[in-house]
Structure formats: structure tokens, C-alpha cells
């Protein structure tokens, strides 16, 4: 009699965990199918080309705000960051740093300072030398694709901020055709 009572209690315990077991049997194959052994990183860029122009880019904007373009030239040893005034094509500043992560961080910090002064600056045109290897290029571009959440807060009173920018601003990277000759140092 005592033995039967014990066995009945045991059976109830097994019955209680059966739904959890069923859940595990469903969840585990589902998770297995989506298992990621690698975590990829993606740097989004664009290239001006023969395609239909982007409607947003063709809109005529008021001239009262100065438009500045940043140009990044990646060479095997040195990277240049140049700021051009779009209205007259004048170079405002030209910086040179080593073509590595530390140099890129330095250039990016300067780019942030310029962005605070000229809020319309949101595009960096990238030109890469033909001999630069993929690893070097990706390491430099990754720095320039860093989110700037704090900056959005600071610039709120001086510039119009689009909905996308509120979520964390990142510069648009435009990839230009590669160059073969080294720039004059």
C-alpha cells in the first residue's frame, strides 16, 4: 500500500515536467537551425553610378547653411582627411594620419568636431588606393561608421534632425573609384 502511494507521487512529478520537456523538444531544434558560429560586421556604403538618382539627393536645399564634404583618402601607409566647401570648392582643412585603426580614430574625432560646426556635413567620400588590402580598408571604414548618439543631443538646437538621425547618427560612406597613383606629400 505504502509502495503504491510512493509510485503514484513519482508519476505525478513526471506528469508535471512533461509540458516543459515538450517545449524543450520544440525550442532546441528551432534554435539549432539558427545557431551562429560567426558574428558578422557590416559596413554599409554606396557608390555614385549610372543608376537612377536618389530622389532625396536631388532636392534643392536652401543656401543659407554651408555644405561641407569630407573626403577620406586611404593609402597603404597614410590616410588623408580633407574638408571641402561645396559652394566654392575650397579646402578648409587637410589632415594626414597613419593608415591604421589609431590613425582612423584620430581622424574620426576631428570629423566629429567639424560636424559640430557644420551640421549639414553627413557624407564622407572614400577613395582607396589600389594596393590597400581589404583588412586595412575594413578596419578604417569601421571607425567611420561608428554611431554618434551623444552628438545628436548636442546639435538638436542648431540643426534639423531627421527621424533616422535621432536613433543614432552615422555618416554616409560613399565609395569612389580607386586611385593608382600616390598623392603628393
Amino acid at each position, binding site marked *: 500500500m505504502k509502495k503504491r502511494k510512493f509510485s503514484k507521487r513519482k508519476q505525478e512529478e513526471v506528469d508535471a515536467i512533461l509540458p516543459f520537456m515538450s517545449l524543450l523538444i520544440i525550442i532546441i531544434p528551432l534554435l539549432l537551425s539558427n545557431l551562429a558560429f560567426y558574428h*558578422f560586421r557590416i559596413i554599409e556604403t554606396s557608390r555614385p553610378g549610372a543608376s537612377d538618382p536618389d530622389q532625396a539627393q536631388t532636392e534643392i536645399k536652401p543656401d543659407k547653411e554651408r555644405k561641407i564634404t569630407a573626403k577620406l583618402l586611404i593609402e597603404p601607409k597614410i590616410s588623408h582627411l580633407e574638408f571641402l566647401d561645396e559652394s566654392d570648392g575650397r579646402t578648409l582643412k587637410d589632415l594626414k594620419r597613419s593608415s591604421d585603426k589609431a590613425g582612423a580614430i584620430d581622424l574620426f574625432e576631428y570629423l566629429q568636431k567639424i560636424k559640430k560646426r557644420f551640421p549639414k556635413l553627413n557624407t564622407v567620400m572614400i577613395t582607396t588606393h589600389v594596393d590597400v588590402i581589404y583588412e586595412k580598408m575594413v578596419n578604417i571604414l569601421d571607425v567611420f561608421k561608428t554611431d554618434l548618439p551623444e552628438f545628436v543631443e548636442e546639435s538638436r538646437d542648431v540643426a534639423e534632425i531627421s527621424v533616422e538621425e535621432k536613433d543614432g547618427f552615422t555618416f554616409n560612406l560613399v565609395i569612389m573609384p580607386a586611385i593608382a597613383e600616390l598623392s603628393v606629400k
Partner: protein
Amino acid sequence: MSKFNREKKEPEKLNITSLMDALTIILIFLLVNYSEVNEEKEIPKFIELPQVEGEIGKTEFGIVMVIGENKIKVGTDTVIDYSNFENEKEAILAKIGERLDLLKKDKERVIASSPNAKTKKIKISIQADRMVPYKRIDAIIEKATESSLNYIDFVSLNKED
């Protein structure tokens, strides 16, 4: 009589406690390594992707193009072999162009059939070997631009701390 008693003995009970422990550990491991990426979870063996430190952003692949030392893979099935890229450039780029046009049409069809699609951009996701010179990547980007594929993503691996 004793033989009859042995036959009536209750069957042995299975202790599932250790099984439950194992399943719980597996569940935690799988949840940690869960990925929302539905395609290209494997890196082709002919390339070594560069590793970049930092936080992982969004990973949404477009038309995947894998560029190796002697091989280029366009999409999921077309593989173009070569021994010298510069000498065979024209033929390689022609093949890439043909394949890209087909893949682009497929993507356009998919986008057209799903009006609620998040983005209508068709992107090229470049996965190149870490030592591939930009010269080769640029020639391929130029070819993609001819097919009106102007959005280029450069893929790398996240460097674990």
C-alpha cells in the same frame, strides 16, 4: 512460486534529472548563440575574413559576393575560378555581370511581391579575403555599379575580446 513473483515486479523508473540538466545547458548555449541572420552562416573555405573589434551592428545580407585569392563566388552557387585576375579580368567581370543581372532580377521580383519589405535597396555584400588588394574589389564594385547595384556592404568578422 518465486518465479511468478519476479515476473510481476514493477518496471524500473527512469531518472530524467540529469537529462533535464543537460537540456537546460544546451538551451542556454543556443539562446546565447542565436542569430537572426537567415543566410550565409558559413564562411567559404577559400577566404579568411578580416576581424574587426567593436560592437556588432545589424547584419542583413544582400547579394553575397565572396572574393578570394583565386576564386570569386557570386550569390550562393556560381563560382568563378582564375589563376591571374589581371590577365583574365574581362572574362571574369563579364561572368560576374551576367550573374549579377540575374540575381538582381530575382531580388526585384521578391521585393515586388512583398510590399511590406523593410527596404527596397538591393545591396551587394562583399566578403573578401583579408589580403585581397582593393584593386580587385574596385573592379567588381565598378561592374556592380554598371548593373545599377550601388549599395555596397563590406563584411568582416567580429573580433571576440
